[in-house]
């Protein structure tokens, strides 16, 4: 806006230009702060980032607390000057917690108890979802209604007869109590998985299926070679969620696999964590060498190692977890 003239500007024009520049500057600042149509303003961005970071901290607070506390020695716990950072890198808590939880054995069994039903879930739910998505038959509406009902209905209502049924069949307190229902698509949260597969297979182009049919593919052939290869994202999502949910399930695992009155040898990390106090005291009695009294740090170390496998899984496969819901198309097209 500066006019390059040889004549020195009069006081009037100088004031005018100054006003114009000031207005432009004010405009620019306003744009920067409040934003334009295409760009968010500074104020809004600061507010969003601030809120997200604050809430993110609240979210992570228990986990950070758990990690921090798990390294503390008893002295650190009692020392009020130590809030977050322990005075020394102390792994003794982990050693004791791991020993009292019988870590290696429980870890292996956790993998089995979560993994085997997950495989069955994958097979059964994908078949059911495909049948619902691809074919028309009488009673389909009723089946879909029942699937939604089973999702909403608390498991407690069918739990007691199922328990006595398992007892009669002799599969109580074994992995079979989880595998058998999963084979027939009645596993943990199976309705969600059926819905995911149903949604997914509905979006397989009908033309592909018809082309396969003309080429002489039977029903199972077209399922295996046309629909299955396209459904990899759905399979990954279902496998991950099923694994995580079986891993974290305490109520049913204790009832059907671990046993309530008579405890079987099968156990998972989550069950060991629930019974941590009793386990630890019995451990401290038997192995008197170096076992201190149960304190907060040891409990936190136990909690951390119980979720550690899942955390590792999460951070390794983060993309698959975070994008899972986008990919399954639960939210419609």
């Amino acid at each position, binding site marked *: 806006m500066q006019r390059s003239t040889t004549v020195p500007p009069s006081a009037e024009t100088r004031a005018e230009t100054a006003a114009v520049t000031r207005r432009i500057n004010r405009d620019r600042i306003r744009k920067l702060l409040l934003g334009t149509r295409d760009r968010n303003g500074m104020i809004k961005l600061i507010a969003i980032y601030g809120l997200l970071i604050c809430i993110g901290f609240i979210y992570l607070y228990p986990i950070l607390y758990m990690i921090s506390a798990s390294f503390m020695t008893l002295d650190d716990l009692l020392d009020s000057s130590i809030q977050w950072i322990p005075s020394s890198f102390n792994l003794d808590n982990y050693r004791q917690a791991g020993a009292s939880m019988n870590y290696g054995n429980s870890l292996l069994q956790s993998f089995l108890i979560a993994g085997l039903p997950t495989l069955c879930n994958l097979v059964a739910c994908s078949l059911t979802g495909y049948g619902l998505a691809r074919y028309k038959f009488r009673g389909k509406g009723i089946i879909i209604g029942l699937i939604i009902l089973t999702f909403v209905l608390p498991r*407690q209502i069918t739990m007691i007869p199922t328990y006595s049924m398992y007892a009669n069949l002799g599969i109580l307190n074994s992995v079979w109590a989880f595998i058998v229902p999963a084979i027939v698509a*009645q596993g943990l949260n199976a309705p969600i998985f059926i819905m995911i597969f149903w949604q997914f297979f509905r979006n397989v182009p009908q033309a592909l299926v018809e082309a396969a049919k003309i080429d002489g593919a039977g029903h199972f052939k077209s399922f295996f070679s046309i629909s299955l290869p396209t459904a990899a994202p759905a399979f990954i999502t279902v496998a991950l969620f099923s694994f995580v949910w079986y891993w974290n399930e*305490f109520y049913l695992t204790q009832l059907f696999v671990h046993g309530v009155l008579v405890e079987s040898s099968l156990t998972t990390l989550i069950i060991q964590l629930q019974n941590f106090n009793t386990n630890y005291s019995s451990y401290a009695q038997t192995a008197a060498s170096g076992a201190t009294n149960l304190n907060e740090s040891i409990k936190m170390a136990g909690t951390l190692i119980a979720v550690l496998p899942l955390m590792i899984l999460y951070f390794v496969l983060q993309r698959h977890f975070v994008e899972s819901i986008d990919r399954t198309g639960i939210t419609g097209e």
Partner: protein
Amino acid sequence: MTTYAKPRPKKENRIRVKRGPLEKQEARAGVMFVLPWIIGAAVFLVYPLFMSFWYALNNIRLTSEGMRFTFLAQGNFTQILLSDPDFLPELVDYLLSTVISVPVIVVFAMMIALMLNEKIKGKGFFRLIFFLPVIIVSGPILNSLTEQNAGTISVIDTQAVTGAISSFLPEVIATPIAGLFSNMVTILWYSGVPILIFLSALQKIDKSQYEAAYVDGASGWEMFWKITLPSLKPMILLNCVYTIVFVSSNDQNKLIGLIKSAMFSGTSEKGYGYASAMAWLYSLVVLLLVGIFALIFMTRKDRYEKDAKKADRKAKAERRKVLKIQRRQARHAKKYNRPTVR
């Protein structure tokens, strides 16, 4: 081009096609695929449902020969409702805390999703943080964390908040709200999946709608209420149902613990029957809750569809009337031997 409702073929004109062999074969294949589920539903859903109802009407004692049933009719239910010291208070507590915490979780999830939907950097990182609790939320871990008071934030003085709340609200409502504050973190942890569902739905809203609204001079606030929220409505229902189901099946819910302990209680009046009756009462309450939320957030049919249906019904009634008159004429014609007037 204006769109009219396609005139439905009249009933008498509609051709009824018998299902051909190909279609039958297709249907059979479909049933084949769903067969595992059907068997499973019969064995693990329908049969236990009936049995559990039968159990609930009986007192069951475990003997060495098996279960011994004594028919009580509604005895278990009246005993639970009238003389069980724990069940009814816990049920009320559960109901109140769920009714309060579910909207909190869903609204919170929606806010986070709206923020993450803006053009910001580090979106993936934030999504990673907000989804992390999904893999950790399980009863024993939550118990262990709340035991050490890690479920509350020490920065916020929850005592002061709860004190302030209970001073001006009746105790019945104040207690669950205070509980909400003291367990804020663990409650927010349930919103991992809802956040992602909302986010995914937000990304699927047609951008041209916003552009059209912008051209018409709508503010961001108006766009949120007129475009974003209506598009998210089905997802709100989905998230409410999801949250109810997951909050209910978590071990922090004391009711399900009560049912389990009643199941294995050695006393003569408790046992399988008593626990089944509890489970039925509890399930009815859960279904009721889901039903209420479904009624609130169910997407209503739009105006056009409603009108079309109304017109359809009217046309049907008219047709029926005409048919009735024709039939009467035919009857009269037969009776009086008069030629039918068409």
